[in-house]
């Protein structure tokens, strides 16, 4: 047991998985010798050799396409897309190939790949280093979509994803790489070394895909969040004094509907938050499910706080990012509705 950053935890997960199973291979742009632009694969090439961890040409479709071929062969590739914003060239391979290989071949070929990609904003990343494209994955039958919010989960979820027999999109909120972030950009950040969830168990363990966790128990309103917004939601609860129950979804698909429904039936209120743009975002799916499953328990309309329906701007970062003030206003509004 040791305190680790999310970067170290993710690296540890790959190290453990590679150590246990020689079919696990890691590659992507700059992930080999250099160890990744975020250092997530540092040391893996030195430890496991160039045929297990290597640099790839700058070609996302090629990275994912090659990974699919490797998976069809029998390897378990865990590949990196440098930023989620650059997954679009690989979207064809992910949605039409990886997602459907098992189905269309009736299990003759399968695709146990993990595609890691740093996601989310709050780092002055502008339009192409800040996006949260999760809804573009959850809409695709055949994929699993995971978003961890802390080092301990990140390691367990990533090992589970690598061991999973199906393709998993693993979105890493890069704003959380070095410490939790509640949206108060003007305050100094707490490093993971000072946070309980920075405590990462040694060796092999998994956090099962498809299981949410309650981060802050409460009775007044349920907040559905994932990634960075988990901390924003917790801050909003403390700052408004509203006894919100904050659920960290962890896996968006398959979704832990039971935990959600149980909570909303208890609180009678629900606010959904995400960084991604509002329209047709994953929040819309969450709202629909809550409405369908908890209608007779709801005492207020389900509300949503999300990124605006614009490309992620640079100068207006903090007017775009749904911070604790906006989430807090939604909590107050739902309590008053």
């Amino acid at each position: 047991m040791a305190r680790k950053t999310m970067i170290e935890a993710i690296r540890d997960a790959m190290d453990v998985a590679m150590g246990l199973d020689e079919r696990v291979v890691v590659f992507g742009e700059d992930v080999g010798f250099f160890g990744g632009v975020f250092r997530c694969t540092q040391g893996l090439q030195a430890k496991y050799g160039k045929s297990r961890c290597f640099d790839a040409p700058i070609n996302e479709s090629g990275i994912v396409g090659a990974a699919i071929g490797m998976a069809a062969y029998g390897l378990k590739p865990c590949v990196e897309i440098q930023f989620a914003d650059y997954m679009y060239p690989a979207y064809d391979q992910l949605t039409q190939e990886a997602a459907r290989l098992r189905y269309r071949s009736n299990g003759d070929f399968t695709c146990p790949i993990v595609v890691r990609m740093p996601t989310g904003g709050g780092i002055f990343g502008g339009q192409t280093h800040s996006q949260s494209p999760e809804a573009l994955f959850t809409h695709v039958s055949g994929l699993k979509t995971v978003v961890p919010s802390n080092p301990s989960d990140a390691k367990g979820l990533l090992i589970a994803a690598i061991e999973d027999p199906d393709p998993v999109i693993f979105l890493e909120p890069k704003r959380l790489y070095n410490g939790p972030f509640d949206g108060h950009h003007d305050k100094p950040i707490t490093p993971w070394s000072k946070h309980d969830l920075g405590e990462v168990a040694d060796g092999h363990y998994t956090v099962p895909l498809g299981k949410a966790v309650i981060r802050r128990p409460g009775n007044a309103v349920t907040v559905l969040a994932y990634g960075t917004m988990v901390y924003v939601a917790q801050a909003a609860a403390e700052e408004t004094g509203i006894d919100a129950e904050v659920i960290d979804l962890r896996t968006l698909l398959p979704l832990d509907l039971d935990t959600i429904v149980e909570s909303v039936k208890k609180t009678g209120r629900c606010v959904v938050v995400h960084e991604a743009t509002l329209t047709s975002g994953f929040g819309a799916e969450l709202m629909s499910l809550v409405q369908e499953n908890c209608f007779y328990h709801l005492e207020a309309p389900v509300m949503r706080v999300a990124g605006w329906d614009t490309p992620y701007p640079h100068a207006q970062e903090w007017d775009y990012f749904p911070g604790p003030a906006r989430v807090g206003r939604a909590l107050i509004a739902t309590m008053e509705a």
Partner: protein
Amino acid sequence: MAEAGKLRFHVPEPEVRPGGTPDFSNVPIPKAGSVPKPPIDVDPREIRDLAFSIIRVLDRAGEAVGPWAGMLSDEELLEGLRHMMTLRAFDARMQMAQRQGKTSFYMQHLGEEAVSCAFRRALDKGDMNFPTYRQAGLLIADDYPMVTMMNQIYSNEADPLKGRQLPIMYSSKEHGFFSISGNLATQYIQAVGWAMASAISGDTRIAAAWIGDGSTAESDFHSALVFASTYKAPVILNIVNNQWAISTFQGIARGGAGTFAARGLGFGIPALRVDGNDYLAVHAVAKWAAERARANLGPTLIEYVTYRAGAHSTSDDPSAYRPKAESEAWPLGDPVVRLKNHLIHRGVWSDERHAQAETEILETVITAQKEAESHGTLHAGGKPSIRDMFEGLYAEMPPHLKRQRQQAGI
């Protein structure tokens, strides 16, 4: 000297359109036997010419000539002829079955039979093809059961793919035939990945990628060449240039200059161009490329020069965009007729035996068809279950799909 002035936009056009007289006189066809056969470890820079010529073995008289000849026995060639004739008969029956409403869709190989049939015989068991929808000869030449192919085409109760896939999008790991996808070119880079995996694992198996002339314009073609060249993957990169991509002539994918094979040169990948209607030549170059891959010498790109004699698919009418008689004018002839003539020339075949073989093969296909139809066709008889629609998407069915399956009443 071209003068500067107003720019003009250029859109390539085929030389002849419907109503015109087909003319291939500008397509240079080297004499059979004239292209040298380099050693497999040749420096790619020394064989750049091969990307601009055409390797041919069978001459006009039906004789096998030159350095690429002499690799196959009488028995192997007779078997090859039977494979091509089977594929042709299979195509004709399935085309008819589609017209009779027994299935929704079919795509023929007419004129291209030599490419996939001969190629398969150059690979070993365990090697993996990543085919397009126009390489069913890979299955036929590997003795994949014809009834199973038909069951897939009919989407019936015995369909190995449970009715989930469009007709002809076969899949057979056992027969080294990767699951076919509807979207073009994606499998080209996947083949490279498979080959990389084989090398990473210290295996001896190799992969073969397949693509049509039109689809070389897709980005995944480029991805595949980059990865194959960077990692020296043990893969054969096949391009079947049948001159047409639906209604679009190959000049739209390629532009006016060079050849498809030449695209490999910029990546340092040795590239060969071969007469795709010459069973012996196809087999010989495939064997050469396979040996290179197995010897860890890396990828080879092969362009098969052929002609799509049939319609693109059962949904297509080529008379709307090309002259009706164009396939007869095609200078490389018909692969079945050419191999037949060669075998007659060798003294192991005759017109009578050929006619008899045609009848026998047709019988076999019809018998298989009857058996397949006893399991149902698209709109009649046995069908895959609705349960099959929900199953097999994930290794384990997630809760939301279980709920939807229940809503569907199952």
